């Protein structure tokens, strides 16, 4: 199976922590952008038309901020060019402040099955502080509009003066809205973002406080039937994100648009990061790849481990053997030995013990040759 990722780089405004491909001031380039995106899709799909696609993910930026007809157009194009499974999971990221019933009507036409709502927090003061355009009320309304769909919510931890109570309220708010899947991300202060200054000024919780919050969230969600299936992702069983699971299983996916990454036929490539460059390449009949790496040998094996160990089921030893034709326990004998205190090792799988999932980098680098 393969996934499709489509990047929509437009937002009403930029959040203070954002260092992704999002360009609030370039909304006027929407038409040109989607024209190029469609062009890219046509060419790439001609290359990779023999695959069956199981998931589509519209990420951003704010996909719900763009004119929905472009989403519809993209879906039509996909269905025309390639085989999209009937049971495909088709996700659209939504900012609670940018959704209405008219848009939903078109999304429905497009065949969207799942909405991932950027709630981040239910605390209006915090939302304002990190530059979100919506408030708690908008989220409640959005959930009402999207009722009946498969809903997910993004929640942030590690925000200014955030308390466990505040995180609990955010989770309650999401669950009351009918959400069956929650992603919990700790704020990462990236150099160059406005929030980085606050980070330098010590206004953000330290890593111990974030770890406390995270542990609290894991426990609280577990009590509500949300199982952690990946370090940052929690779901009522059966509601896991298939699109994301495909990343962690090292499945193939094709990404379109600014900054989008792909992994097809053993090659990883990522597009350029600005709209102008992207448009320029496509209009000149070229792909807009900024980087391209063929992943093979040890690299491929390491990727398998690095991705699989993020999940709670861990690395499937049998899948490893069928993918690489070698034995997992032999290939990683040293790392398995040095890290054994932190791993659950069985005949069929190797996973990071629950209590160490949040310090996984330290464990994973031991597997790097």
């Amino acid at each position, binding site marked *: 199976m393969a996934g499709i990722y489509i990047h929509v780089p437009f937002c009403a405004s930029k959040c203070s922590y954002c260092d*992704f491909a999002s360009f609030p001031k370039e909304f006027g380039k929407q038409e040109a952008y989607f024209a190029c995106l469609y062009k890219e899709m046509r060419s790439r799909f001609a290359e990779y038309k023999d695959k069956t696609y199981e998931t589509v993910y519209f990420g951003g930026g704010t996909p719900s901020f763009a004119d929905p007809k472009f989403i519809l157009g993209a879906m039509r194009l996909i269905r025309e060019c390639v085989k999209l499974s009937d049971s495909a999971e088709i996700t659209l990221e939504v900012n609670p402040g940018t959704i209405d019933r008219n848009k939903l009507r078109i999304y429905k036409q497009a065949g969207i099955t799942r909405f991932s709502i950027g709630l981040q927090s239910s605390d209006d003061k915090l939302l304002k502080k990190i530059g979100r355009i919506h408030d708690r009320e908008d989220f409640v309304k959005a959930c009402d509009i999207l009722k009946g769909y498969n809903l997910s919510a993004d929640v942030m931890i590690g925000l200014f003066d955030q308390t466990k109570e505040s995180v609990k309220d955010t989770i309650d708010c999401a669950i009351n809205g009918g959400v069956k899947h929650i992603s919990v991300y700790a704020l990462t202060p990236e150099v160059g973002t406005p929030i980085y200054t606050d980070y330098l000024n010590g206004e953000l919780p330290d890593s111990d406080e974030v770890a406390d919050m995270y542990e609290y969230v894991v426990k609280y969600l577990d009590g509500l039937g949300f199982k952690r299936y990946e370090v940052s992702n929690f779901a009522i069983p059966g509601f896991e994100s298939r699109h994301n699971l495909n990343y962690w299983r090292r499945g193939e996916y094709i990404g379109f648009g600014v900054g989008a*990454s792909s992994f097809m036929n053993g090659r990883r490539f990522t597009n350029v990061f600005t709209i102008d460059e992207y448009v320029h390449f496509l209009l000149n009949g070229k792909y807009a790849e900024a980087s391209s790496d063929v992943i093979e040998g040890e690299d491929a094996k390491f990727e398998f481990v*690095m991705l699989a160990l993020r999940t709670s089921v861990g690395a499937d030893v049998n899948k490893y053997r069928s993918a690489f034709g070698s034995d997992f326990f032999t290939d990683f004998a040293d790392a398995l030995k040095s890290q054994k205190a932190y791993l659950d090792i069985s005949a069929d799988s190797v996973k990071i013990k629950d209590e160490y999932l949040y*310090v*996984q*980098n*330290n464990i994973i680098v031991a597997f*790097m040759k």
Partner: protein
Amino acid sequence: MAETTKKNIRNFCIIAHIDHGKSTLADRLIEMTGQVSERDMDDRLLDSMDLEKERGITIKLTPVRMFYTASDGEEYIFNLIDTPGHVDFSYEVSRSLAACEGAILVVDATQGVQAQTLANVYLALENDLEILPVINKIDLASADPDGTKAEIEDAIGLDCSAAPLISAKAGINIKEVLEKIVTMLPPPKCADEAPLKALIFDSYYDNFKGVICFVRIKEGSVKVGDRIKTFMSDKQFDVTEVGVFSPGLTPKSSLSSGEVGYIAASIKSVQDTAVGDTITLVDNPASEPLPGYKQALPVVFSGVYPLDGSKFNDLKEAILKLKLNDASLTYEAENSMALGFGFRCGFLGLLHMEIIQQRIEREFDIEIITTAPSVSYKVHLTSGEVIDVENPSRLPEPSLIDYMEEPIILANIYSPPDYVGPIMELCQEKRGIFLDMTYVDSKRVRLQYKLPLNEIIFDFFDGLKSRTRGYASFDYELSGYEKSDLVKLDMYLNGDICDALAIIVHKEKAYARGRAIAEKLKEVIPRQMFEIPIQAAVGGKIIARETVKALRKDVLAKCYGGDITRKKKLLEKQKEGKKKMRRLGTVEIPSEAFMSILKIDSE
């Protein structure tokens, strides 16, 4: 070129405190005599250039031969012999001075007499040199030429009435300096017919010619084909080349008394041509060497280990090569439980140590771990035996020790009077004993203290600079050994003793030092998967304890649009970081941790 008689030779050096303009004046003299437009340095000197530039100090320069036609119409040969600009190399300075008849003393008119000014002047006077004072930087607004003159007269007793007032940087009054060299500095005394006595004042190893000895011929002469020997080594060599510095190596048929030049004789190691030694002829030897030879003894010792244990042989090669050019560097292989195989190296001082360490890393591209420097202690055992201990972890059991002695220095500290309080406080903290305080003038005080050397290597310079806002200058000489109440401070990481972190301290200081080191290690050791107790102990008794908490969050955020490559790169970076760490048992320690224990804020 007309034959120049020896009364027309001037051999001199330039002495100054750091930054007072020694190198700039040398450049001007060379320019004015038209010898070369810029200082032409050979490869050996370029090697140390980065370090020199970074620190604003001159480590070593090649001698330069200049021709100058003076106002008396005669042509003179000037041999300028440069001197290293740091206390670590004071013995080398003294030998360079011994090769001269005169010295130009450069004093910065904005700063006056400083510690090194004095130290170098005393060295020059010991070597009976004629001193020509020169007041530099007179073009600066804060310059006080008259005050500086008065200060030199007071502090040193030199007549400054005729001292040239110059700006080496701006090229003011350089001509006057050249004339004064002719009129004030004496020509060399000559004895061409006597048996050869050539003073080695420097040497370096050349891959093709072998060791190049920089010499001042005091008596006799030497030519290609002569069989030579030195007084300190029993080896004999055939001279393959002699010559002068103009400024590159320029061969000549012979060198005779009064001249400065070089001798090459296919000598394999600088050990055989120690600085200060005397070269003579095998056939017609001098009866005794020139006075003043001292074996340069290392005073600071540190363990040097390859970060990657498999690089031990590369490190050995590197040290051997450096040793070829540096007779004062000593080494012996040692084995540490924590760090594996490495070397205990001996250095002339902290700067020398730093230079060698950086050269190993830069020129030989070997990453190393160096342990905190130590001095050499004399340990008197109950058996009556006396041993030298340079590696704290090799200190015998307390029950076997009768008593210990530690090296002591005499320190001269120059400072504006405002900072006397803070300096005394610092010296007090460093177990110093007050000897004397004198006013050099109304703006400068000289404090003399007796201090244990092991306190000097422990953060003394930084402490002095920060307490006096950089105004104080400092110089010292070793004065011997004194009995002292010393103990070994052990450090434990995660319950295991770490021999590479052990230090020897005065008993009174053990508690504070132990606590400070534990705190410092807590700062530099990154959090790991488990809690790491850090303990300081004396004689098995824990005196301080800190804990590095277990790591609780180490995870990469969301992969937007599935950018796995970026994630992988971040992990690769983390892996690279780990490679810079040394594994001690289960604990990973950054290589700089071993030195960082030196940089502890005094309380």
